[in-house]
Each structure stands twice: as structure tokens, then as C-alpha cells.
């Protein structure tokens, strides 16, 4: 791998894969499966501090989850004797699944976060060697009343704020969006305006089933949110949200991803409904906004437009950080699609994979991780 190459991290229900390409992203070399037979919901590539460290959270249905890392692109993986992400005895809780591995900012090179099920946040200050429960969130008075969604009670998204070193966002299904401005010591809700369609009280204090949030480095405070019904944008770091489901076939969906350079551009894959969690009308379409959600247009070139009843899950849509960014997504039916030109043209990069639950992209040598 050399500077400017592209790396795709693909987690599936039966193992993890890597796809490598150069900057043109025309052809891809596939490596894997790693962790054969294990579900890999979380992957990350950490290029800070001179590292080239690949993280994965494989989970054996029999032998449990175990956070692991590789410094040689998957040839060798760490095999800690004891699980490094583990709940303290006093909590009474046990780790079920690792949902998210998130390196912090480039100027905090040894800091990482990990979101897990049951919903909790862990922090590592030594580049992933050891982890500790973030007690500020665990002790939040709302936590005992968070409820599991279809995917379990998971803290599935962690976003270290790109501009404020002490600010951190997490999203929980179902709990909502929580924000800390003191590096995890205290937390408050950040989902005002997000509806809970499925509850008698449509605007509860918490309990929103937020499926995914995505932030933008170039515009502090801007976030997009795909809810369990509802598509939103915030321009004030989650203080308020406005509905931006303008021109989409459904505002139900799981995934949302931002353009790496243009804060007005974002991508979603609408799903028909909570009762039929497939692409509407059998058409596989990514929708892109270029005006911060004022309008959305379908991207179809190279994507099947009939008999494609697909599902794209919450962490299975992403972008890379090339000047003309690539956009990638995986489906529950084991297909992986990629666009080298910001979503205009698409190609099937892999088929016949196990169900895809996680797709991350990195440009080698870039400050941005995956």
C-alpha cells in the first residue's frame, strides 16, 4: 500500500474483508475473510501517530466478542488473553457486541472510542491497548430506561467533534443523540426536534430511535440524522434539528454519510418502511443532496433498478476522502457497490459476501481515518 491508495473495510455477519485499490479506484484486490464465521459490526483504520492500525470487533456466537487489531493489514491480529473491552464487575453488565470503533482527532493520536451493546461507551488512551468504561454516560439517569431497537440496545455511532477537542456525540438505539462537551464526563440529549413516530409522545425527552448520525469537519456543528422514520439536519451541534426529507421516497432508512469536502452534500439509502425494510419499488437508489437537504436526487447509474429488494444497514454506507470522493455501500444480501465519482456512476465491487453490516473507507497517508 502506498500513499494515496484506497482501502475499504467491510464487516459482515461471517467475517471481515479488505479491498485495496489505488487512487483511480478502477480495480480492487480483495483480502479475507478474516475472523471466519464471526460477525464483524465494527472496523476502523487508524493512521494517526505514525500507525497503520486496522481495528475490528469480531464476535463469535459461541465464544463472545473480542476487540482485535492488526498492524500489517490483516496478516496478523492481536489476540489478547482477556477481552480488553469489558464491563466492570460492579455494573453487572456483559459485553454483547462491539458496534463502533472511532479514532479521535489527529491531535489526540492515542485516543479512541468504542460504542457497544448493551449501550455504553468505552475509551482508550493508549491507541487501543486498554479500554475503560466512560462512566459519565453509563451513570446517566436516562440509561436504565433506554430500550433496545431491532438491532439490540446499542451505542452504534461515536463522533468526536472535528473542531472542538472536548466535544463528543454518541447515538443510541433507542435513546437518541447525546452530547458531551467535557470529554465524556457529563452528557445531555441533543435530539430536540427529532420525532419518535412509534411512541404515543412524539417528542419525548429521550427514546428516539436514531439509526445514524454523520458530522461534517468543514462546517462545525453540522450533522445529518437518519431516524427510524425521519431525516434531519442540525446546524448547531444537535441543539435543534429540522426535517429535511424533501423529495425522498421514504424517510425511513438506516444509513447516512457525508461528503468529505462539501458540507451541503450527504448520501442516504431510503428504505420503504419499518414493516418492509427493503429499497422502495425494488429499485436500489442512493439519494444525494447537494443543498443540505433542501432537495434529494436519486443516483441510479450502475445500480439495479428492478427486482432489487435490498437493505443497507446503518454502518454500511460511507465515503472516502479523495478530492473526488468515492462512495461505497454494502447490502444485507452481500453485495458491495462503489462509486469513484461522488455517486454519479456505480459498480458492483463484490457479490456473494455474507450480509454486510459495516463499510469504512480510508485513503492511505491521509489524516482522515476510517
Amino acid at each position, binding site marked *: 500500500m502506498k500513499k494515496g491508495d484506497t482501502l475499504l473495510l467491510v464487516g459482515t455477519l461471517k467475517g471481515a474483508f479488505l479491498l485495496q485499490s489505488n487512487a483511480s479506484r478502477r480495480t480492487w484486490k480483495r483480502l479475507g475473510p478474516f475472523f471466519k*464465521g464471526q460477525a464483524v459490526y465494527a472496523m476502523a483504520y487508524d493512521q494517526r501517530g505514525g500507525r497503520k492500525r486496522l481495528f475490528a470487533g469480531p464476535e*463469535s*456466537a*459461541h*465464544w*463472545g466478542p*473480542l476487540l482485535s487489531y492488526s498492524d500489517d493489514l490483516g496478516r496478523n491480529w492481536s*489476540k489478547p*488473553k*482477556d*477481552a480488553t473491552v*469489558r*464491563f466492570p*464487575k460492579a455494573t*453487572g*453488565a*456483559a*459485553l454483547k457486541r462491539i458496534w463502533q470503533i472511532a479514532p479521535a482527532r489527529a491531535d489526540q493520536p492515542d485516543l479512541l472510542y468504542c460504542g457497544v451493546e448493551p449501550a455504553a461507551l468505552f475509551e482508550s488512551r493508549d491507541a487501543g491497548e486498554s479500554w475503560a468504561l466512560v462512566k459519565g454516560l453509563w451513570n446517566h439517569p436516562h440509561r436504565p430506561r433506554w430500550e433496545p431497537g431491532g438491532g439490540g440496545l446499542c451505542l452504534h455511532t461515536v463522533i468526536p467533534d472535528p473542531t472542538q477537542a472536548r466535544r463528543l456525540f454518541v447515538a443510541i438505539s433507542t435513546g437518541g443523540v447525546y452530547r458531551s462537551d467535557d470529554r465524556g464526563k457529563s452528557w445531555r440529549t441533543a435530539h430536540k426536534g427529532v420525532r419518535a413516530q412509534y411512541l404515543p409522545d412524539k417528542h419525548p425527552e429521550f427514546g428516539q430511535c436514531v439509526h445514524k448520525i454523520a458530522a461534517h469537519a468543514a462546517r462545525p456543528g453540522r450533522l445529518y440524522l437518519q431516524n427510524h422514520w425521519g431525516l434531519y439536519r442540525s446546524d448547531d451541534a444537535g441543539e435543534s434539528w429540522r426535517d429535511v426529507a424533501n423529495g425522498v421516497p421514504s424517510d425511513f432508512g438506516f444509513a447516512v454519510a457525508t461528503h468529505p469536502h462539501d458540507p451541503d452534500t450527504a448520501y442516504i439509502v431510503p428504505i420503504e418502511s419499518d414493516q418492509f425494510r427493503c429499497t422502495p419499488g425494488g429499485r436500489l437508489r442512493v439519494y444525494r443532496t447537494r443543498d443540505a437537504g433542501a432537495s434529494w436526487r436519486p443516483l441510479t447509474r450502475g445500480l439495479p433498478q428492478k427486482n432489487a429488494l435490498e437493505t443497507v444497514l446503518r454502518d454500511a454506507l460511507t465515503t472516502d476522502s479523495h478530492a473526488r470522493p468515492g462512495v461505497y455501500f454494502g447490502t444485507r444480501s452481500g453485495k458491495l457497490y462503489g462509486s469513484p465519482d461522488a455517486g454519479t456512476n456505480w459498480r458492483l465491487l463484490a457479490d456473494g459476501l455474507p450480509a454486510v453490516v459495516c463499510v469504512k473507507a480510508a485513503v492511505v497517508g491521509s489524516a482522515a481515518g476510517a
Partner: protein
Amino acid sequence: MTTLLLPGHLGEIVGGRGRVELAGSPATVGEALAALVARHPGLRDRIQDEQGRLRQHVQIFVGRDSIRYTGGLATPLPPGAQIHVLPAVSGG
């Protein structure tokens, strides 16, 4: 002597052997597992969660009998017991 028989993945953790013999005479399955993980610490988190509970999809047999029906970890061990630690058909 009590013998523990471990399938592939667990066998790798104990150095490629699928068979571990305990010198003492543990009275229960729980005591035998405690002796096993004391000797091979890497097994602990694979068999139990961090609260010490047996993982949901791990099956343990004493001879041919699942400990689910014989008292769980408190199941008494006869002299010369063979304990199988197996992946349950419910997982995977």
C-alpha cells in the same frame, strides 16, 4: 483425574491440544472450569462473560449429560470425569 475436552478454537488457545488433564479432583464443573482457566487464562473470556456467567451458546457435558439438566456449574463430578466444552448448535 478429570479430563477436559475442548473443540478446535479453544484447543488452539491451550496450545493446539484439545485435551487438558487436571491433576486434582475438582468436586464440581465450576471448580474444574476455574482450574482450567487458572492454567489457561485465555479461555476465561471465551467460556464466560465478564460477570462469570457461562456464555449462552456454550454447552458443557459431563460424560454424555448436559449440565443444563444436572445442576449447571454446581454439577458434581465423579472420579475420572470427562468434561466436554462444546459450541452449541444454537450459535453460529
